[in-house]
């Protein structure tokens, strides 16, 4: 077999990672997507076949989750061995038969940590050359989320990693309960838009081609998040904070800041994203990261008269918010 050279990003096979707690409605949503997308062939990877069947020609059970630490001592370099194997086999299948499938959806088990799933696509070279994550979608059961977030850190992590949150069973809770839940989810993750799903019914555009890992995607922070004060009923381990500045940042200092935060908190730093203005650059610089994996690129050129606002969002477990904000403050160019 000949291994092909890496394909261009735009031609990589898009992969959607579907997370959410047991009973949240992942399978219902998945069946809905599979029914609607008649034009596209979707390969589905599951860790275990649930009670509810999935209606698809290409569905693969990857067996038990297999967590593999890649580099000795590099805590954040854990990948999912089961996915490496399955995605490799799927690639071979598609190379001999290109019409086999157009995209992949991975449905994780309820308790799965999305970190190693995401890192599989960045650390394993054969996988990253062929596949690209479109987005991590997290289905949140409006009826049971509050208890689950209290009881399981995995539930908080799945929300923290999400590019988009899909709220199911909203008809089973009161408007007040829903408002409280939304506020809590925003504090965990202010950059993931929330969309209701009713028995899996949701516009397909909300779940496919989301571009959650694309550097070009706009960094939207839930309005109101920045002005919120820190007094809340729930004290979740997974929280987020944002830093904004209308004064340019110093590139070298921000780089040193990231080296420090990654050295000290990589394991707890789940997702981060930024659009920043550096002193002396006439275009923005965009970046994002998962644990200690990071990407950056030139963004668009600032337009004439535009308020050049740098915005950075960090989502993680027990991050020392005020200390980190103070350090970011010192990254403002003098």
């Amino acid at each position, binding site marked *: 077999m000949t291994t092909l050279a890496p394909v261009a990003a735009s031609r990589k096979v898009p992969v959607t990672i579907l997370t959410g707690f047991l009973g949240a409605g992942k399978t219902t949503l998945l069946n809905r997507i599979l029914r609607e997308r008649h034009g596209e062939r979707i390969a589905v990877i599951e860790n275990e076949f649930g009670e509810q069947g999935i209606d698809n020609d290409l569905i693969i059970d990857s067996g038990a989750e297999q967590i593999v630490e890649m580099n000795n001592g590099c805590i954040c370099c854990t990948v999912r061995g089961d996915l490496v194997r399955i995605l490799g086999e799927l690639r071979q299948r598609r190379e001999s038969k290109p019409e086999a499938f157009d995209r992949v959806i991975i449905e994780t088990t309820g308790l799965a940590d999305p970190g190693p799933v995401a890192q599989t696509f960045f650390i394993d070279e054969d996988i990253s050359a062929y596949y690209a994550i479109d987005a991590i979608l997290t289905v949140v059961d409006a009826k049971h989320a509050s208890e689950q977030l209290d009881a399981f850190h995995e539930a908080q992590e799945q929300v923290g990693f999400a590019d988009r949150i899909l709220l199911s069973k909203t008809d089973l809770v009161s408007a007040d309960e829903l408002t409280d839940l939304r506020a809590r989810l925003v504090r965990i993750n202010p950059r993931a838009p929330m969309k209701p799903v009713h028995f899996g019914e949701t516009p397909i555009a909300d779940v496919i081609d989301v571009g959650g890992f694309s550097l070009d995607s706009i960094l939207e922070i839930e309005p109101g998040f920045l002005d919120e004060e820190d007094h809340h009923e729930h004290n979740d381990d997974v929280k987020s904070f944002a830093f904004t500045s209308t004064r340019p940042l110093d590139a070298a200092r921000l780089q040193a800041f990231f080296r420090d935060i990654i050295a000290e908190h990589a394991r707890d730093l789940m997702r981060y994203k930024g659009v920043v203005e550096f002193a002396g650059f006439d275009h923005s610089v965009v970046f994002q990261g998962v644990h200690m994996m990071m990407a*950056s690129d030139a963004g668009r050129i600032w337009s004439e008269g535009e308020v050049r606002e740098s915005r950075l969002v960090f989502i993680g477990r027990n991050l020392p918010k005020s200390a980190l904000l103070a350090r970011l403050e010192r990254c403002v160019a003098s």
Partner: protein
Amino acid sequence: MKTSHGMDSNSSSRLLCKSLPVRDDPNVAFAEPWEAKAFAIVVKLTDAGRFTWQEWVECFSKEVAAATAVEAAGGVPKTYYEQWLDAAERMMTEKGLTSKEQIAARGFALGVTGVAHVLK
């Protein structure tokens, strides 16, 4: 399974390599993986017609001359492939394949995490 990403390119490229400045230690092909990558990128781009091998030889020779002058004047010496990389960046910038801004912006994450942890 790793490919040799164009390393076994056509023999004309290999012949053309003879026109390049000579390496310090011809017994070691590449000291680090990035060197092989930098080499391959240049070969691939000439194969794709983005610039000619002759243009590359001129560009690289100029870079080597400049680096040699810096070193002679007591400046920091650069390895063969550091000079190769500098020349490749200049060539690609001149040909509009990338820009100084883009190189600087991409270098941001690289400077934070090192090459093993940069997302592609």
